[in-house]
């Protein structure tokens, strides 16, 4: 494992109750890259993503097997505090979910929790986060207004600002653009390119073209039907440079998926 790897998973699997949702995922996520998870629905890409910041802890009955290592530390070790994990590994969700508070308070919430109390410090953090999310010019005159009053694309960028305000190292994005129109989507994709030098980004997307456009590496997940239980388990099929995945993939299942021959 080189120093450049931010995450390493070994034989990662996730159970919901007795049902194995994802099996045996082995991945390395490299620093400063955008990695995309693609695959049909039910293949477990969101499930795997949520393992990286222990959000699966919130689902009753969810159990994680195998190892997820962050800079060599097992995230699921008993000594590891999930709250600290989530401060360093931020998340943006599919449906923009700003708090029903003002724009300022939305962005300042995380830093306040982390101990930033002084007003001018908070102001700085909020401004830089909003600038980093390409939202500052839109909202600088209405920071006191509710975050819910923004358009869908702006709300999602607000969520990005909120996530980056605590200065995480990694940003996990779970289908961040699926509820947005093409222009808002393009804005966020451009934003991701700009953010690459500051964050390591993992994005789950069901839009293959988006994965092709933005990511450096792509992981393709698919489903296997368990013959006994007739339920589908997610499995990692191929993980390689995006260029290769979309021009000359190694696995024929990958080729069938990216060419649209099967959903």
């Amino acid at each position, binding site marked *: 494992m080189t120093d450049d790897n931010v995450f390493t998973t070994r034989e990662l699997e996730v159970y919901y109750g007795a049902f194995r949702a994802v099996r045996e995922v082995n991945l390395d996520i490299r620093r400063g890259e955008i990695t995309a998870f693609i695959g049909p629905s039910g293949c477990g890409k969101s499930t795997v993503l949520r393992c990286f910041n222990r959000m699966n802890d919130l689902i009753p009955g969810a159990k994680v097997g195998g190892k997820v290592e962050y800079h060599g530390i097992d995230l699921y070790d008993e000594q590891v505090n999930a709250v600290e994990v989530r401060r360093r590994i931020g998340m943006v969700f599919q449906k923009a979910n700003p708090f029903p508070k003002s724009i300022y308070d939305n962005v300042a919430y995380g830093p306040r929790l982390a101990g930033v109390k002084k007003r001018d410090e908070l102001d700085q953090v909020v401004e830089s986060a909003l600038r980093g999310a390409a939202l500052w010019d839109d909202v600088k005159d209405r920071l006191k207004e509710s975050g819910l009053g923004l358009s869908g694309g702006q709300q999602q960028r607000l969520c990005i600002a909120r996530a980056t305000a605590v200065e995480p190292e990694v940003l996990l994005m779970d289908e961040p653009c699926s509820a947005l129109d093409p*222009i808002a989507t*393009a*804005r966020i*994709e*451009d934003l991701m*390119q700009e953010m690459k030098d500051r964050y390591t980004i993992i994005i789950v997307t069901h839009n293959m*073209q988006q994965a*092709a*456009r933005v990511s450096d590496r792509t992981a393709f997940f698919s489903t296997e039907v368990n013959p006994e239980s007739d339920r589908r388990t997610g499995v990692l099929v191929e993980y390689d440079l*995006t*260029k290769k995945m*979309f*021009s000359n993939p190694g696995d024929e299942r990958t080729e069938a998926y990216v060419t649209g021959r099967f959903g």
Partner: protein
Amino acid sequence: MDELRRSYHHELDKARADLAVLAAKVAELIPQATQVLLDGDLVRAEAIISGDADIDASAVEIEEHCIEILALQAPVAGELRQVLALMKMIAEVERSGDLVANLCKAARRMYGHELDPRIRGIIARMGQQAQALYATAIEAIQSNDASKAAALDDMDAYLDALQKQFIAIMIESKNGDVDLQLAVQLAMVARFYERIGDHAVNVGERVMYTVTGKVPDHSKPKRPKVQLDEAGNPLPSATQEP
């Protein structure tokens, strides 16, 4: 509204710029090859011939870049036309590079032979015209300007006329006392220059396609032929055909 998908457009512009640079390299080599032909500079000839491998490698690189853009960015409309046109133009430029190397190979084979001063004059003129054609083609690439593409057609007509005059002079100059090897090489030299001009015209057509989406209609009547005088200057044409 500010520009979106900046990195993708950057890639597109880079591919086009790389092609322009490659075409410029080839264009630079044309007068050098002409000089090689006229001076019999074998050292320079070798350098140009071996340098063609680099040109081929660069062409492959740009082509792969275009394939990457197609696979990853799924361009549509004008940008799709641009990428497709770029890929065809790469082929034209690469072939032109080969032709310049061929000129030098011909120089090697002609080494030692004296050339008739009229023939030397036409070779020099053909070299100039081919270079001018190529320079205009490069401008067309860089500026995506369809009007320059139209100008190329007329310039090529002149080059074609020069080639015909060249052949005619060759045939009448050494009647009876003809060195077959030299004659064949000279004929090929003329052909090479004329082909370079054609490639430049093709580049112009590709630029037009990028801009207008229309492929040139080759069923239309061809452009009017250019008449030349004794010294090889173009005569004003009596009638202008549409």
